[in-house]
C-alpha cells in the first residue's frame, strides 16, 4: 500500500471518505514525517498536539456527516499567516515569541473547512527573498539534490518552508503568499504545483504585510487538483480587507480535465531573456507542443514593457514595505532593545530585529519615497506598472492564457548569488510582472533538467480567471506526467 504521506489531498479525501484510514492516522504519519525531516529546517514551530486534536475532532465531524473541503487534511501554514495562540514570526527575530490573539481570514477559512495544521513553516524574513536564506530561523534546505552532488540547494522563496514541506511529503499542502513570485518560484524549483490567485481573491486580513498592493495568498500542493481544492477553501470576499473582491468563488475542480481545444495560448517573446538556460527554452517548447497536441492554438504575443518589470517591482515593493514594517518598533509587541532615549531604542530594536535583506529593502523604500525622489522613482514606477498591466490587457484581446517558464533556471546551491542581491532578484524576472498586473499565475512541474532538478512552467490568466489556469494546468500535468520525487535518503539519514 502507498504510504499515506505520498497521497495527494484528493486521494486522501477519498480514502477518508471511504473509511480506509482516519485523519488521526493520516496526521500521525505526517507528524512522524515532519520529525524525520527536521534536517530541512522547514518548520519554525511544529504543532503536533494541536494537529492531533484537530484530526480527532475532524474524524468526529466526519462521523456526523459534516465534511469540509479540507476535512482532516494535514497542512503546513506559512509563518506569515497569523494563527491564534500559535507563535507567528514572519521568520523575523523582531517577532520572536509573538503569539497572535486572532486568526487570519485565510487560515480561519481553512479551519472552517476541516484543515489540520501541522505547524508554521519558514520563509524568507517578511517574505523578502527567493531562496529562503534570509529567515531569522536559519536556511530551509530543499529535499532535492542534483545528480552526483550533495550540495544543499534552495527550496525557493519566500514560501520555501512550504515548498520544502510539500515536496518532501511531510505536509499534503501548504499555504504560501506571493508578492513577486513567492509561491510560483518555490513550487517550480521543488517540482510541485503552486497558484497565486488574482489580487483580491484571497483576504489579506491577518497576513503579515510585505507589499500590500502585491501580496496575495495561495496554495502549494502536489497536483493541480489539490491546488484547486485548497484555493476553494482559502478564497472569498472579506469585508475586513478593502482590497478583497466581492465575487463568487467558482468551483475550480469542475473545470479539471475539460478540453482546451481551440483555446488560444500566448507565447510572449520578451520572456526569452539573455542568459536563460537552454534547458528552460527546451522545456518551454515542450510545453507549447503539449498544448498544441491538446488542440490549443499557439499565438506569438508581445508584452513590450516586461523589461521594466523587475526595476518597477524593486521600487514599489520596498516602498510599501518601508511603511508596512514601521509598526515593528518594539513599543507594543515583539522584541525591544532599550536605548538611552526613544530614538536609540528604535534604532537598536530594528537593527537587532531585522536581517540584512529586510534592512536593505526598508532603506531602498525609504529612499524612493523621500522628498525629491518620489516623482523620479515611486511615481514613475506606478506609471510603468500601469503600462505593464496594459500590456496584458492588450494581449488578452488575442489570447486566453499565457505560457512561460516560471524561473530562469533550476534550484541553485545555497550560497550562490548570495553576495549579489541583483542576481538574486533576477530569480523573479518571469513572475514579477504577474503581481504588478494583479493577475492569477500558476506554476507546475514540467520536467527535470540535466542535473535531475525540477523545472516549472508558468500559466498566466485573465483577472479572476483561475478556472482557465486549472483547466490548462490539468492538461499540462497529464501530458508532463511528472512523477519525480526527491530522494529523501539524505534527509532521513540525519
Amino acid at each position, binding site marked *: 500500500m502507498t504510504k499515506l504521506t505520498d497521497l495527494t489531498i484528493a486521494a486522501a479525501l477519498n480514502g477518508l471518505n471511504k473509511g480506509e484510514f482516519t485523519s488521526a492516522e493520516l496526521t500521525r504519519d505526517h507528524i512522524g514525517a515532519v520529525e524525520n525531516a527536521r534536517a530541512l529546517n522547514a518548520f519554525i514551530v511544529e504543532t503536533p498536539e494541536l494537529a492531533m486534536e484537530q484530526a480527532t475532532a475532524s474524524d468526529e465531524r466526519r462521523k456526523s456527516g459534516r465534511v469540509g473541503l479540507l476535512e482532516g487534511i494535514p497542512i503546513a501554514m506559512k509563518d506569515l*499567516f*497569523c494563527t491564534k495562540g500559535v507563535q*507567528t514570526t*514572519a521568520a523575523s527575530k523582531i*517577532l520572536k515569541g*509573538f503569539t*497572535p*490573539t*486572532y486568526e*487570519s481570514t485565510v487560515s480561519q477559512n481553512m479551519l472552517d473547512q476541516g484543515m489540520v495544521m501541522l505547524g508554521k513553516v519558514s520563509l524568507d524574513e517578511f517574505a523578502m527573498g527567493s531562496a529562503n536564506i534570509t529567515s531569522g530561523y536559519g536556511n530551509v534546505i530543499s529535499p532535492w539534490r542534483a545528480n552526483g552532488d550533495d550540495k544543499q540547494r534552495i527550496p525557493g522563496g519566500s514560501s520555501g518552508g512550504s515548498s520544502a514541506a510539500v515536496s518532501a511529503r511531510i505536509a499534503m499542502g501548504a499555504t504560501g503568499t506571493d508578492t513577486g513570485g513567492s509561491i510560483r518560484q518555490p513550487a517550480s524549483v521543488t517540482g510541485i504545483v503552486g497558484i497565486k490567485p488574482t489580487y483580491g481573491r484571497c483576504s*489579506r*486580513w*491577518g*497576513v*503579515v*504585510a510585505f*507589499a*500590500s*498592493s502585491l501580496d496575495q495568498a495561495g496554495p502549494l500542493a502536489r497536483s493541480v487538483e489539490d491546488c484547486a481544492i485548497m484555493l476553494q477553501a482559502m478564497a472569498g470576499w472579506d*469585508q*475586513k*480587507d*478593502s*482590497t478583497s473582491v466581492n465575487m463568487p468563488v467558482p468551483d475550480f475542480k469542475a473545470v479539471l480535465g475539460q478540453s482546451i481545444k481551440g483555446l488560444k495560448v500566448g507565447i510572449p517573446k520578451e520572456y526569452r531573456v539573455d542568459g536563460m538556460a537552454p534547458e528552460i527554452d527546451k522545456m518551454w517548447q515542450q510545453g507549447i507542443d503539449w498544448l498544441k497536441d491538446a488542440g490549443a492554438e499557439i499565438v506569438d504575443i508581445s508584452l513590450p514593457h516586461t523589461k521594466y518589470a523587475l526595476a518597477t517591482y524593486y521600487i514599489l515593493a520596498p*516602498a*510599501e514595505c*518601508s*511603511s508596512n514594517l*514601521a*509598526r515593528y*518598533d518594539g*513599543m*507594543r*509587541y515583539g522584541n525591544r532593545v532599550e536605548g538611552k532615549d*526613544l530614538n536609540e531604542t*528604535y534604532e537598536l530594536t530594528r537593527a537587532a530585529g531585522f536581517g540584512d535583506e529586510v534592512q536593505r529593502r526598508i532603506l531602498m523604500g*525609504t529612499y524612493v*519615497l*523621500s*522628498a525629491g525622489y*518620489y516623482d523620479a522613482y*515611486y511615481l514613475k514606477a506606478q506609471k510603468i506598472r500601469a503600462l505593464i498591466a496594459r500590456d496584458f490587457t492588450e494581449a488578452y484581446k488575442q489570447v486566453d492564457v499565457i505560457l512561460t517558464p516560471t524561473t530562469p533556471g533550476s534550484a541553485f546551491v545555497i550560497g550562490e548569488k548570495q553576495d549579489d542581491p541583483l542576481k538574486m532578484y533576477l530569480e523573479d524576472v518571469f513572475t514579477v510582472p504577474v503581481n504588478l498586473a494583479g493577475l492569477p499565475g500558476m506554476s507546475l512541474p514540467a520536467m527535470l533538467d540535466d542535473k535531475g532538478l525540477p523545472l516549472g512552467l508558468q500559466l498566466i490568466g485573465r483577472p479572476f480567471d483561475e478556472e482557465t489556469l486549472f483547466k490548462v494546468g490539468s492538461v499540462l500535468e497529464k501530458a508532463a506526467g511528472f512523477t519525480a520525487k526527491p530522494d529523501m535518503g539524505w534527509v532521513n539519514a540525519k
Partner: protein
Amino acid sequence: MTKENKYILQGQTGDWEMVIGLEIHAQVISNSKLFSGSQAEFGGEPNSHVSLVDAGMPGMLPVLNAYCVDQAVKTGLGLNAQINKYSVFERKNYFYPDLPTGYQISQSQYPVVGNGIVEIDLEDGTTREIGIERLHLEQDAGKSLHDQHPQKTYVDLNRAGVALMEIVSKPDLRSGEEVSAYIKKLRAIMQYLDTCDGNMEQGNLRCDVNLSVRRPGAEYGTRTETKNVNSIRNILMAIEYEASRQIELIESGGKVVQETRLWDPGQNITRSMRSKEEAHDYRYFPDPDLLPLELSDDEIEQIRVTLPELPDQKKKRFMQDYGLSAYDTSVLISEKPLAAFYEAVVANKRDAKRAANWVISELLGMLNKQGKEIEDSPISAEQLGGLIDLIQDNTISGKIAKDVFSIMVETGDDAVKIVEEKGLKQITDTGAIEKIIDDIIAANLAQVADYRGGKDKLFGFFVGQAMKQTQGKANPDIINELLKKKLAGE
C-alpha cells in the same frame, strides 16, 4: 477710523499687517473610529477603546467608516465647498510611540473637499468672506502620558484612529478679531450640521496658526506655524505674540525663519519646535490597503438634502422675520442651542426685539457670570417667554421684570407665580395712583412751587416719590400723565 486701519500694527519703522491662515482639526462626531469599529467616544479607561487595527497589530487592515465620509461631505457642503468625487487616502510616515502603525492615514494630494467660503461676522456688523482651501479626513494619534511615571512615558491609544477633519483656510485672515470670528463661525456651522461638537477643552477642535507679517499690501512674508494652541483666548495671545516677535525681528535687521513653533501657555510665548531643515520627510504615498474614495453625484445629493438650516441662512431669516440688527443676530445664531432658545422665546407672537434684548443682555449675561452654557440655563425658554408676556400685557414694568428674573434664576419658579406671591403686580388703577399723587403734592408744597416757577427738573423728584410710595409697582405711564396734569394745577 477707516476700515483698513483696524488691521494696521504700528512698528518702529512703520506700519505692518498680519497675514493669518488656520489649520483646524475637528473631531468628527461618529460612534466608531475612521478605520476600525472601536468606540470613538472621549474618555474611558486608558486603552479601553482600542481594536487590533488601532494597535497596529501584524496583518491588520483599515476599513473606511462610511459615516465619517458622510460627515466630511456634509461639512464640506456647509462650507459652500467643492466636494471631490475622487479622493485618496495616503500614509504620512513618521515614528512615534503613540502612532502604532508608524504612519497616519490622511489625505494629501486628493482631499475629499476642495475650495469653499466661510462668511464671518464682525463686531461692527460687517461681514467678510474667508476662503477655505480644503478639508480632508485623517486619523488622530494616541496620547503620550508623560506625567504618570518619573522615567517612563505611557501611551493611551483610545484616541488613536479617531476621525478628524482638517480644515485649512486660505491666508485670508488679517486680525485677531477675524480669527476669533472665523473659528466661532466654523464651530457654529459644524455644530449646526452635527459633524463636530467644537469642544476645544476636550481637544475636539484644535488649531494650528500660520502667520506672517508684511508691509500693508506688499507680498506675503515668511510664515511660521504655531501648534498646540487650544482655546480662542490662547490663539489670540499667540497671534499677538508671534506678530510682535516677527515685526521686532525684521525691524532689528533679522529674518523670519520658516519653522514650526509651539505655544507655551505657561509663559504665553511661542517657542521654536523645529526648523524647515529639521522638518519631517513624511514620505506620503497612497495607502495600498485602501481603495480611492469615489463619490457619485447621487450620494452627494443625498447628503445635501439632509442639510439643516445653516447659520447664514438663519441669520438672514432672523434679520428679515424678526427685524433684528446684524450684530444681535450674529450673537443669537453663534450657537445652535442659543438660536433654538431664542426662537422658543419669540414664539407666541412675543415682541422679537424685546425677546432678543432679554436673551442677549439678561440671560447670556447671567449665564456668563455663572459660567454656564445655554443648555444648562436655570430658566427655560418658556419661562422667559412667560416673563416677557407679563411685561407685554402691562402686568409688570420692565424694571420689576429684572427683579423677577433674578428671583426666577434663584428659585426656578415661573414669573407669574413670583409676581403673584410677592405682590409685584403693576398698579394700573388710575384712582389709586391719583390719590397717592395728591398726597405727595400736599406733602411737598415747596417743591411744587419751585416746579411751577420753572424748575422743570423737579419732575423727576415727583416720579421718584410716586415710585417709592408704590414700591415701583405703579405703571410709569400713568404716573407721568397724572403728575403732569396735577402739577400743572389742572
